């Protein structure tokens, strides 16, 4: 928001600096907004990020569904949607039209009001999450100094929507899905936040913009990404797993496991309400990917990014490329890994992720206090590997015996 405001104040000079079309753009800008009062510029600078968030990210959601379906198809040696438009490019629109025109069914015994409220409650936190995701150098809708904490608080609130939907449907499968969702989100919140604490310790700020800024510089603007640190890599893995569990993506989609509990909390939802649930879920997933990128993959930093108009454009490009990579990674994982069982889910969270994230926090402290870099590298790596191996050993005490089947051969 601030960046947009500054840009608007100096827009003409900045635009004139662009080769070829700069003069034209500057004149256009002058014709449109030249000499506009201060409050107009302020209003525009407020409206632009909001419009950006509510238009671009739902668009990304729509095409994520398409990419997901095509990629899953290719992974299974199928073709995927290719009927609506070239390469199926209009498929999201067709899906939207279909969902909009479907009958809205509310179960007779459902709690009508809560049933109606749940999809709305599912979307709002997901959209709010984007308000702290920096999409470029200095380009963040709101630079809260508690940005990361705000994101976690909001993402926790999204579990309420799942719970409301599951409870209000008066359906045992919905309720089971809601219970699973609640248990899962509470369990995975802890290691996820602790993995983020490592980054916060290293940066010394909760502001997402500050975290992204801390990763600039180095070779090609790349070598300072936190993922290229021992603790950063571990944190990245932990946080990605936590984020996937938090947004109920496969392999952690047991709240909506179709084969077990039909579709979990949205069993009783149809049409547009179902679409809203999907929207909320995907937006949360994308926002979490954005936060992962910001915290570990250098955010908007990349070769050529930096302050100024062009650096800003390149930084936006880098951010969205990394976001795309994260989305593709989640799709790839969805296409590969089987769903975990409920007990595996819980024991994984509490026996592996939680100890590992605490160990990781110690590793960050070591990294901070050992000022000689090579020793810090070796020390933290050894520490993390040691603990990883130990936890492996401890978790593997349960021997899996060969199963004896009574009826199946």
């Amino acid at each position: 928001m601030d960046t947009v405001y500054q840009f608007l104040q100096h827009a003409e000079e900045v635009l004139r600096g662009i080769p070829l079309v700069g003069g034209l753009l500057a004149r256009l800008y002058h014709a449109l907004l030249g000499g506009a009062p201060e409050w107009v510029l302020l209003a525009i600078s407020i409206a632009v990020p909001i419009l950006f968030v509510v238009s671009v990210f739902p668009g990304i959601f729509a095409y994520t569904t398409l990419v997901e379906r095509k990629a899953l198809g290719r992974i299974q040696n199928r073709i995927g949607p290719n009927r609506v438009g070239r390469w199926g490019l209009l498929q999201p629109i067709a899906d939207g039209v279909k969902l909009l025109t479907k009958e809205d069914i509310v179960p007779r015994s459902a709690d009508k009001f809560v049933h109606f409220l749940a999809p709305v409650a599912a979307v709002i936190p997901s959209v709010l999450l984007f308000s702290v995701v920096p999409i470029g150098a200095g380009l963040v809708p709101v630079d809260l100094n508690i940005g990361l904490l705000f994101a976690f608080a909001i993402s926790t609130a999204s579990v309420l929507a799942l719970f409301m939907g599951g409870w209000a449907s008066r359906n045992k499968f919905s309720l089971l899905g809601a219970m699973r969702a609640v248990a899962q989100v509470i369990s995975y919140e802890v290691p996820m936040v602790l993995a983020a604490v490592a980054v916060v310790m290293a940066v010394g700020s909760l502001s997402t913009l500050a975290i992204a800024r801390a990763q600039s510089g180095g070779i090609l603007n790349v070598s300072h990404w936190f993922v290229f640190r021992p603790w950063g890599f571990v944190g990245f893995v932990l946080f990605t797993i936590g984020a996937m569990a938090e947004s109920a993506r496969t392999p952690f989609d047991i709240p909506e496991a179709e084969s077990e509990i039909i579709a979990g909390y949205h069993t009783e939802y149809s049409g547009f309400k179902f679409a809203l649930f999907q929207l909320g879920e995907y937006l949360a997933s994308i926002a979490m990917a954005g936060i992962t990128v910001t915290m570990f993959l250098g955010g908007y930093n990349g070769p050529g990014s930096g302050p100024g108009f062009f650096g800003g454009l390149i930084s936006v490009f880098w951010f969205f490329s990394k976001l795309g990579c994260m989305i593709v990674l989640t799709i790839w994982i969805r296409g590969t890994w089987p769903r975990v069982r409920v007990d595996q889910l819980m024991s994984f969270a509490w026996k592996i992720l939680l100890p590992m994230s605490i160990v990781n926090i110690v590793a960050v402290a070591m990294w901070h206090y050992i000022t000689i870099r090579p020793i810090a590298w070796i020390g933290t790596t050894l520490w993390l590997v040691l603990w990883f191996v130990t936890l492996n050993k401890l978790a593997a005490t349960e021997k899996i015996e060969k199963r004896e089947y009574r009826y199946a051969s």
Partner: protein
Amino acid sequence: MEIAFWILSAITVMGAIMAISLRNVMHCLLSLILFFFGIAGHYFLLHAEFLGAVQILIYIGAVAVLIALATMLTRHITGEEGPREVLGGKWWAGMGTAAIIAGLLWAIIRKDALARLLPTEAANISYTALVGDIGRALVADWVVPLEAMAVLLTAALIGAVVIALEEVIRKR
């Protein structure tokens, strides 16, 4: 500022009243969540952003969800109450007590009794970097209470597990 205050106050009061007066425990819970959001809004309004986020994280993300789980574990799943208990004899007793307390507090506030005890002018400092300040305060001035809090939370965690798992433990 004023508009936000009045809206948030309305949300808060409405949520609180609904939370204690509705019949269905689940509706009570949802009203309570509304109330928590109202309080969090007040924190943001008072420039205590960190507290606001903590309020959402802990009260809505943890306490409300815990209450939901407890409700589902203890009652019929719809959360419906039996016969209407609101507006019974006990209700009037509660109302009376609450009204007396509220009246007393109101009287104290009206009398400006507090104002004499407090510094009249607020110091004019900037609100930035509050999170860092709170963190520093917590691990410098308040480190002993913080550690005590950690012990307390651990004890509460273990205690809760022990109480809830009592029968399981007994069976073993």
